[in-house]
């Protein structure tokens, strides 16, 4: 059932076996997995079924570190969460991403890739992807044109493309029809209230923008508000624990990670551009394993990561006549118009083109002469950095909650890895006669600066996972250390980020958490799973 908070009496207290706070990829997956069980599941969502400016404004915050887009545009606050405009590009983490790597301080998950394998299978279905098969060799001739890299240096990594699944729209009916699930819209959790010992959650305080308040008395709570907001809610719930919940060791909000992304090289092609079609995305393939839509990317082999002490990284390969912002914007606008769609944010596009007339002109000239180049961008893992963090700002939002302050910081190894990966790709392109690469000056500079950084809106690490409470906010089951019935879902629990976009892993972890909660709720309430 889907209801609005205003259908409850003002000041009402709602009981639930499990309360999930936030209906994005993580929260909806959890509720979907637990539908039709005997447990009463309450999925509380700040927004309604559609976007609304006043609710979205609750996400506004300060950026005080590396340049970052305004925080109220970097995520979405209504039913379906940020999947209302995600792109559906997915890849699982690699086995090495879970390891404690001596050369990556603060690395290591309390899980292995094998632990997550069954959940990844189910996550593929949730995200409407193809089979959970990311090994290129298993696709054989279905993926023609894969580059035969020297495998001790580079390997081909596969990504899959979903429709992309809009979780809100796609799973709305299933949740509405589930007898044990109530979705509560336009209800903001503004505080997690714990007992005096801070060992258990007693209730959640609710407020709406219209001034209505209420409470939830849950047996178990999962906070699934996104990678920044999870930390905000724990930090702001400071009535008993003065530094916020789960923060006895000053870890909540720290280790914020993104996927720094920037174009950093181009290559003059020595082969027809089409030859590398499988690297440009949206490549539909059908093999023995089934059908999927792919993108291949050159990635650092595990071997070279270990030998040279590098992070994980893969490289996007694209092509075009010009890669300046003005020309790229022109191309995007032209593509939308050709498809009969009005471009997203036309005003911004026009400004970008006007601000880069030289680049636009060169692009158009090269286009007229059909002179293409390959361009390369990196998707690099960010090394966990305790100083890269989310804290609370002095200013409060319309509900009285302190706004968030993001201080995003990178480390030298991030750029070292990007530079090395790019050079390896350049060497392999030259060795194989595919083209000759020129690296951008900023990439060669031996410092930590990045130019024209294009972030990915992946917010990770702020409630990191570790079995050791001194090193992590949550344990391997995503339970907040020291608080018996409080869990966190989403990429905030990732100790490290890999190069892969996070949502497939967010969904896999939510599936795994659903299994854990099914067992746990069964233990607590007695009886089986129901059904």
């Amino acid at each position, binding site marked *: 059932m889907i209801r609005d908070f205003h259908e409850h009496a003002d000041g009402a207290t709602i009981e639930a076996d499990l309360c999930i706070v936030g209906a994005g990829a993580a929260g909806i997956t959890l509720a979907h997995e637990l539908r039709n069980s005997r447990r009463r599941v309450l999925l509380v969502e700040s927004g309604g079924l559609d976007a609304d400016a006043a609710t979205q404004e609750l996400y506004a915050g300060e950026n005080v570190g590396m340049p970052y887009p305004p925080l109220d545009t970097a995520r979405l606050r209504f039913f379906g969460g940020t999947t209302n405009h995600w792109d559906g590009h997915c890849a699982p983490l690699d086995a090495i991403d879970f390891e404690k790597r001596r050369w990556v301080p603060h690395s290591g998950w309390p899980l292995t890739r094998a632990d997550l394998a069954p959940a990844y299978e189910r996550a593929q279905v949730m995200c409407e992807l193809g089979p959970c098969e990311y090994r290129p060799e298993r696709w054989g001739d279905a993926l023609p044109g894969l580059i035969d890299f020297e495998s001790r240096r580079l390997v081909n990594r596969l990504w899959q493309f979903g429709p992309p699944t809009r979780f809100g729209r796609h799973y709305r009916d299933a949740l509405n029809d589930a007898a044990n699930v109530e979705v509560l819209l336009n209800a903001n959790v503004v505080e997690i209230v714990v007992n005096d010992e801070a060992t258990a959650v007693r209730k959640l305080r609710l407020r709406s923008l219209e001034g209505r308040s209420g409470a939830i008395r849950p047996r178990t709570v999962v906070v699934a508000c996104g990678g920044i907001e999870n930390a905000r809610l724990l930090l702001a719930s400071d009535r008993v624990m003065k530094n916020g919940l789960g923060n006895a060791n000053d870890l909540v909000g720290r280790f914020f990670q993104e996927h720094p992304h920037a174009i950093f090289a181009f290559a003059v092609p020595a082969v027809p551009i089409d030859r590398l079609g499988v690297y440009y995305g949206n490549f539909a393939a059908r093999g023995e394993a089934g059908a999927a839509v792919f993108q291949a990317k050159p990635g650092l082999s595990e071997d070279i990561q270990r030998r040279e002490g590098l992070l994980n990284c893969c490289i996007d390969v694209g092509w075009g006549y010009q890669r300046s912002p003005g020309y790229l914007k022109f191309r995007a606008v032209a593509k939308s118009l050709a498809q009969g769609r009005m471009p997203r944010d036309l005003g911004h596009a026009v400004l970008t083109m006007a601000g880069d007339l030289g680049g636009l002109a060169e692009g158009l000239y090269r286009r007229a002469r059909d002179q293409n180049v390959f361009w390369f961008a990196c998707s690099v893992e960010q090394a966990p950095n305790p100083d890269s963090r989310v804290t609370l700002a002095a200013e409060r939002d319309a509900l009285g909650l302190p706004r968030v302050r993001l201080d995003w910081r990178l480390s030298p190894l991030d750029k070292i890895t990007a530079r090395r990966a790019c050079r390896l790709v350049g060497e392999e392109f030259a060795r194989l006669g595919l083209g000759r690469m020129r690296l*951008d000056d900023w990439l060669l500079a031996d410092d930590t600066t990045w130019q024209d950084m294009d972030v990915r809106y992946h917010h990770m690490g702020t409630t990191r996972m570790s079995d050791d409470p001194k090193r992590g906010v949550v344990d391997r089951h995503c339970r907040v250390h020291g608080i018996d019935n409080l869990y966190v879902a989403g990429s905030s629990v990732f100790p490290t980020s890999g190069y892969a976009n996070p949502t497939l892993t967010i969904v896999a972890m939510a599936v795994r958490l659903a299994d854990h909660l099914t067992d746990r709720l069964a233990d607590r309430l007695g009886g089986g799973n129901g059904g």
Partner: protein
Amino acid sequence: MRDMQPFRSAVPRRWLLAALATVLASPAVPWADRRGAPRHLRPERLLSDLGGARAIGRQYLALAPQEAAPGLLARCLDAGTGAGACGDAGPERLRRALDEQRRRDFAAGDTVVIDGWILARTEARLCALAALG
């Protein structure tokens, strides 16, 4: 503007492409054995755009000044390619030997970055030889 850089850089792209097309242009200039490089390694026989090659070579020599001697460079190239064995067998065989060495350089990561371009050490040395010529 950043995106125009490749086409305005100190080593113009036109030169680079011509010079590195690669190590395979037919000899445009008759060579003369004056400077101590073995006859078969005369750069004029291998590079189509000497001007471009020299510009690259000068930058390489700035990075590796200890190699600024034609004899030394030629010996390095010889050692890598076994080109000496080709003797006067003709530019075709020499070009093949250099091309193979170039590939080996790339595979081994024996490369240099000059003005942003990634060059095999062999390519850079050949250009340096041209610059000294």
